[in-house]
């Protein structure tokens, strides 16, 4: 059993990235992810790595694009408005089939929004975000331990499938301190014969590129990429199922909302109402099958979100109009209390009696 240390969520991501073999970090200051950059600034110079505070989020993600092209593990982090700025580079990284890890410690929006926790970048993260046909692997930690574990996983999956992966956290998990164990993290590097490292006059030149002026070629590239996405959807869906075996009501929530939902499940069970929780750990790929399977058994779904209701659309698509789906939400940096969830489920139960 490895030793546990007390860390902030943002710091756990940074330390896990370093332990995953990431030696290049580029960022731009923004709340509430600052501890991550500060940690990198402190540690990277001491281990021969790169910490660079870029002139903008746009520059930072394009520096990431450069390092990713050379085949090294690389990370950037930001919060919602900054992640919007990164979308150009993320689209290029996806279009060039490169691995990279992007962290979004979400805050309320739109616009400059606020600095309090939010989950309102769900659409942006799971549906592509920038221009063109593409996806990111999107991992949603619900604890400081998962901030570390999912960061390590993000690097491995990005390498394996040659695509960008995102840690989509929120201001609460980022700022929260919890005991975390980091000793199990070890990198699983893969061969990258496509990387631009200099030909050494020994091979034909490699080109990192997303431009294909011939539409038939570009279409083919997109088909190939989506072929890989199919593999990701088949192999990499992750979720936690909590008290779902006999559940009448299925709460669906990720990140900090899942912790609130879990409390609500416990309280509802005490009150004699059979509630359960499906907690997506990957929101792309989304645990469609788990939701579809639950739809056969439950009376209703409740999507608990820190947004105006974004994930709820994926829940509805997955359950296929078989059962009602309700939204239980706060937004703009407000966090729902378990009581709000409990009250909603109780009203559903009451409505049926």
């Amino acid at each position, binding site marked *: 059993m490895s030793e546990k240390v007390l860390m902030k969520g943002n710091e756990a991501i940074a330390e896990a990235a370093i332990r995953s073999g990431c030696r290049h970090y580029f960022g731009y200051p923004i709340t509430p992810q600052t501890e991550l950059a500060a940690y990198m600034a402190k540690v990277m110079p001491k281990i021969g790595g790169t910490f660079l505070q870029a002139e903008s989020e746009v*520059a930072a993600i394009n520096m990431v694009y450069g390092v990713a*092209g050379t085949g090294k593990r690389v990370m950037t982090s930001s919060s919602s408005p900054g992640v919007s700025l990164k979308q150009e580079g993320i689209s290029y990284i996806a279009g060039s089939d490169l691995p990279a890890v992007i962290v979004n410690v979400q805050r309320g929006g739109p616009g400059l929004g606020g600095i309090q926790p939010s989950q309102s970048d769900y659409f942006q993260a799971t549906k592509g975000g920038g221009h063109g046909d593409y996806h990111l692997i999107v991992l949603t930690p619900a604890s400081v331990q998962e901030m570390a574990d999912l960061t390590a996983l993000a690097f491995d999956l990005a390498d394996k499938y040659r695509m960008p992966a995102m840690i989509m956290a929120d201001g609460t998990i980022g700022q929260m301190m919890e005991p975390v164990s980091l000793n199990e993290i070890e990198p699983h590097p893969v061969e990258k014969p496509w990387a631009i490292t200099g030909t050494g006059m*020994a091979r034909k030149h490699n080109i990192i590129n997303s431009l294909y002026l011939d539409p038939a070629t570009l279409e083919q590239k997109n088909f190939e990429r989506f072929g890989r996405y199919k593999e990701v959807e088949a192999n990499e869906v992750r979720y936690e199922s909590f008290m779902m075996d006999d559940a009448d009501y299925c709460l669906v929530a990720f990140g900090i909302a899942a912790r609130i939902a879990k409390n609500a499940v416990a309280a509802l069970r005490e009150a004699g109402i059979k509630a359960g929780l499906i907690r997506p750990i990957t929101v792309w790929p989304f645990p469609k099958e788990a939701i579809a399977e639950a739809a056969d058994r439950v009376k209703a779904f409740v999507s608990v979100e820190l947004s105006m209701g974004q994930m709820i659309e994926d829940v509805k698509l997955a359950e296929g109009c078989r059962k009602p789906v309700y939204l239980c939400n706060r937004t703009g940096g407000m966090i729902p209390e378990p009581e709000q969830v409990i009250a909603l489920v109780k009203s559903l139960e009451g409505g049926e009696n």
Partner: protein
Amino acid sequence: MAVVYEKPHALSDLELHYCPGCTHGIIHKLVAQAIDALGIEGKTIGVAPVGCAVMAYNYFNCDMAEAAHGRAPAMATGIKRSLPDRIVFTYQGDGDLASIGMAETVHAATRNENITVIFVNNAIYGMTGGQMAPTSLPGQVTQTSPYGRDVKTAGYPVRVSEMLSTLTGPEYIERVAVNNVKNIRNAKRAIEKAFRNQMEGKGFSLIEVISSCPTNWGLSPEEALKWVDEKMIPYYPLGVYKDRSASEAKEA
């Protein structure tokens, strides 16, 4: 038989897509000749821009990357930080470097990022069909300044070399032209120096190359070269704007 002239090895055999009379071909050749002369093809990584030179990644035999519009200095920064012993260059036009990518340019320069930047200034957006560039001259007629660039509403052209030379960071800034043999020979020397500076770890070197665009200027290739002499060079004087190592040696 003695070989008196041959295509540089660093240049691929592909047919260039540039318009007749365009000087990108000459500048590509000068870059490739510098890479050959320094024997660095196997460890050089180039970054192509968005603009007329977007497909430069096909024309150089070294490893290449295609950046987003204006982001080549940021991408090159990433590549160089990842592989400090490789030689990294960007090849960018005026819209790419001096408009949408100005922030990336200035900050790579002020960090004295150890990269080489080839900045091709032809005072127009070529690839998109001849729109006003940040370097278009006052009064210059383009698709988006059909009555001539009006400095009252569109401002004045940016003199990149002068501006960057005010920074403490960068190692070397020079403006050259490729409109006649004498200027081409000088440009060749400057470009090679910009690569050698990087090999010696001196830092950010930018060579601004005044180029011509007969197609979008609406001139014959010959008239375009004359226009460089008569209109471009008076606004964009050639010369070395910054050479930190030389200045420091002089002071010492």
